[in-house]
């Protein structure tokens, strides 16, 4: 794979993409947990 041309750009793009997705996913899940603690379990309509 190191023999790939433009490997820097390809790597930057793919790492950046999935890094952003992962970071955002983490932020959303964390926020979800934080909010969830403030809401009594009966109000949550999924499990």
């Amino acid at each position, binding site marked *: 794979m190191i023999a790939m041309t433009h490997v820097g750009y*390809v790597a930057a793009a793919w790492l950046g993409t999935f890094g952003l997705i992962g970071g955002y996913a983490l932020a*959303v899940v964390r926020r*979800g947990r934080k909010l969830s603690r403030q809401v009594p379990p009966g109000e949550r309509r999924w499990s």
Partner: protein
Amino acid sequence: MTATTQPGAVAGTPQPRSGDTAGAPAGTGSRGTRIVGLLALASIALLVLYGLVISPADVEMDDAVRLMYVHVPSATYLYVGCFVTTLASGLWLWKRTAGWDALAEAGAEVGLVFAVITLGTGSLWGRPTWGTYWTWDARLTSTAVLTALLVGYLALRRLDLDPDARSARAAVLGLLLVPNVVIVNRSVEWWRSLHQDSTLTRIDPTIEGDMLVALMVGFLALGLVFSWLMIHRFRVAWLSQQVDRIDLDEALAERRAEAEAEVAR
């Protein structure tokens, strides 16, 4: 049972769980999202395999074509997110159910994530292929304007306002999102076509073989990611509404207690 994003009936599995949620942390997860999440991770792995290893380098662009397997699907899901926001905004204005408001918010924010990905991958594709990071081609330029529209929409949503007023304003703005996108896209395309700019990010229609497979896997993987993010973000928005409502109830109860104490004195 996959949890649906139907705002009127956000239900997870209705049957009683056999106690395994007792110790689980409370959050926006559910059996449905776990399934979608696992599928997403699997398809991302498949995408890495096809996109980076199996599929060949392009004749003209060399390995920069591998960026297209991410760039094109993310541009697509960006538009999906915008459609969701506009549709949900319209439905909120019609039905005034809080769930639509939450869905509109989720669509815009997840859409913004994909907008950044689209711009980033498009720019990084342009550099090795055409020599510059930014080419003012029709798609990238429209995407940039669309990103500005989304940022503005989300800025309006964050304002410290009475929730009903905020939802109303956001809904009007959200409803206009897709029409704005269409107008901007049309005029930018028309403008750039005057300069005979080829749409640099247009996928070669004769794409075939492993490259086509890689692209399809890209659509699958990012689609699952989009869905997973949408479900979670929608639930976060929904929970946020509940918290606001609870805070409001508490504030009212306190006020009432104060008033009663005054009267009793």
